[in-house]
């Protein structure tokens, strides 16, 4: 009898424990490794405490690896990930193909209208929202106020590229380990081509004309790439063609760059005394213009989306709405300080005077985000959406190849003419292959 009772008790315990295990829904999140995402990972304990029926698991990868991983999983409906960290490039394309769940029926207190309209539009396809923004960014100019003041120079609110060249020339002192300007040189569609495309917008260039023919053989692209190559070769650091965001950040933070144009998210890094030797000497200006200020400042967002192949959609949505909510911003402010609130997505962040005081770069970030318009980013009309990219599936591969030619021209391996000629023929071939004409 006793033995029977023990057996029954053991069996019930086992059954209950397995029930308890199966009751918790596991949500697997694929994300990139950066400060804001890691903070989210740390703070997600609070979400799990509030939702004991949901267990979170993290897959953190490098940006390019993550992109390849997500593309494989979503295209084959692998269903390994329940939440994906994607950008403004993927959201409309994948959404339109029916690979992502629609972000509708959000809780009333979520206040979706608080998200900047440009960010909302960038994450939508045909007016349907497919991802919720975690943080967003534009681009702007960082400069050393002390060096400008010593040289008797003053930075306008939105400089022209010609002014930037003059400043770079005046402040370029390689013998003192001080370089006039640091810019993206590393090849890649999200690396040098994000900068060069944004720059090209201000020179009046566009990637494609109204009938999707590339325009690298036009005078605007020639002026842009010639200007970029001359500027960086003459007044940039040595080996600039292999410098990306992190290399330039390190150069700027160690006091070796007089100017740097890159993502607004760098504002929190260059003003952080624990990693920047020039934290109190940094000034902020808008991204430079040339013949126009249309498209002068890119727009990007890291957003959370739910693939249709996920078998935990409800739990995933609960987490995504929590991580991108105003409530989450409050938790970050309490735990990590208000300057570390995810930037660029919500208007309410910038209505908070405490945030504006704590983050000296916030005003320029807001202005840059306000100016960015992916629907209308080129001087001449263009058929594509996107400031620093064209939101078509072929762009990633084309721009990666064009980026290599531009980096080749910067490294002196080919002339600007040759780089543009190659870019034109590669782009035409790919567009023809994709049956645009």
């Amino acid at each position, binding site marked *: 009898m006793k033995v029977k009772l023990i057996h029954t008790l053991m069996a019930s315990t086992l059954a209950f424990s397995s029930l308890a295990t199966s009751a918790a829904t596991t949500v*697997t999140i*694929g994300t*990139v*490794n*950066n*400060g804001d995402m*890691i903070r989210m*990972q*740390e703070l997600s304990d609070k979400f799990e405490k509030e939702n004991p029926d949901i267990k979170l*698991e*993290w*897959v*953190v*990868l*490098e*940006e390019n*690896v993550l992109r*390849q*991983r997500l593309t*494989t999983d979503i*295209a*084959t*409906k*692998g*269903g*390994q*990930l329940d939440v994906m960290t994607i950008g403004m490039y993927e959201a409309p394309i994948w959404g339109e193909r029916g690979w992502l769940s629609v972000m509708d029926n959000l809780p009333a207190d979520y206040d979706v209208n608080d998200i900047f309209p440009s960010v909302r539009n960038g994450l939508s396809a045909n007016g349907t929202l497919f991802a919720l923004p975690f943080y967003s960014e534009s681009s702007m100019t960082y400069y050393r106020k002390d060096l400008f003041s010593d040289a008797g120079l003053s930075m306008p609110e939105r400089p022209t590229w010609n002014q930037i060249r003059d400043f770079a020339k005046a402040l370029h002192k390689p013998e003192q380990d001080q370089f006039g300007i640091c810019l993206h040189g590393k090849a890649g569609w*999200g690396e040098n081509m994000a900068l060069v495309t944004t720059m090209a917008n201000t020179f009046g260039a566009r990637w494609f004309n109204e009938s999707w023919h590339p325009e690298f053989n036009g005078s605007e692209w020639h002026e842009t790439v010639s200007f970029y190559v001359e500027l960086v070769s003459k007044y940039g650091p040595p080996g600039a063609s292999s410098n990306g*965001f*992190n290399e330039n*950040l*390190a*150069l700027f*933070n*160690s006091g*070796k760059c007089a100017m740097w144009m890159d*993502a607004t*998210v*760098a504002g929190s*890094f260059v003003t952080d005394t624990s*990693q920047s*030797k020039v934290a109190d000497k940094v000034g902020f200006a808008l991204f430079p213009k040339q013949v126009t200020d249309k498209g002068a400042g890119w727009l990007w967002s890291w957003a959370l989306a739910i693939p249709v192949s996920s078998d935990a959609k409800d739990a995933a949505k609960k987490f995504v709405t929590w991580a991108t909510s105003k409530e989450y911003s409050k938790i970050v402010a309490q735990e990590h300080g208000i300057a570390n609130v995810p930037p660029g997505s919500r208007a309410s962040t910038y209505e908070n005077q405490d945030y504006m005081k704590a983050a000296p770069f916030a005003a320029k970030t807001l202005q840059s985000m306000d100016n960015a318009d992916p629907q209308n980013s080129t001087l001449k009309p263009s058929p594509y959406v996107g400031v620093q990219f064209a939101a078509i599936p072929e762009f990633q591969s084309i721009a990666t190849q064009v980026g290599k030619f531009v980096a080749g021209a910067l490294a002196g391996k080919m002339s600007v003419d040759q780089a543009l000629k190659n870019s034109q023929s590669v782009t035409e071939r790919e567009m023809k292959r994709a049956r645009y004409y």
Partner: protein
Amino acid sequence: MLSLKQARQLQTVLLGLLAWGVALLIFFPIFWMVLTSFKTEIDAFSTPPQLFFSPTLENYLQIDSRSDYFHFAWNSVVVSFGSTLFGMLLAVPAAYSMAFFESKRTKSTLLWMLSTKMLPPVGVLVPIYLLFKDSGLLDTKVGLVIIYTLINLPIMVWMIYTYFKEIPKDILEAARLDGATATQEITQVLLPISKGGLASTVLLSLILSWNEAFWSLNLTASSAAPLTALVASYSSPEGLFWAKLSAVSTLACAPILIFGWLSQKQLVRGLSFGAVK
């Protein structure tokens, strides 16, 4: 004018110096990685690079608080040893038949096996991914063991085949005359003779499986992810990460380095003993 003795001594010293130079050159990246792991992010990125700095354990503490190192390390151990064991079980009989019962097609079969290594892995990513998805092998250690076995099998067969070829057939024939079965021939004669070669094959397979990154990143998520996935998670598109990446790489390399160091005596002994060598 140097005497013959002095010339020999000089030659020994020069050769010694050359050996040390080559060894230090090969070891330098590992040394620099370990050094960088004790720097702050700002020191890790400084130009010119710093050799002297105030060391910190901050990176290791951050890794400890952010990631479950032992979960990833255990997965690496299971997958590497599992695939090596599985690979040896297949490679030894395959190499035995090819070395001692050679046919017209043996050479072309060996070349064909090696040709599978010439295809870039990304070329078969989608079909393999779909096969794994349909078989429920995604994010499982069994799935990784299967794929690593298949990846390393051609090299393992080639290596063991080369060692077996050096063994005279007469030894096996003698065993056969004494009444040994094929299994006894392999287990009681062939394997003891070629244990040095087999040990090298095992070690190479372990190292290749331990360091493999492409398939482990693409076929796992959280449950079966090995140390290569942990290392990849510390590379950042926006933000300084070299010091933390160096720390996590040091932790990822450490077990296999220690294993290689501990097994080197046995390996050398295995290579120098035997009936033939």
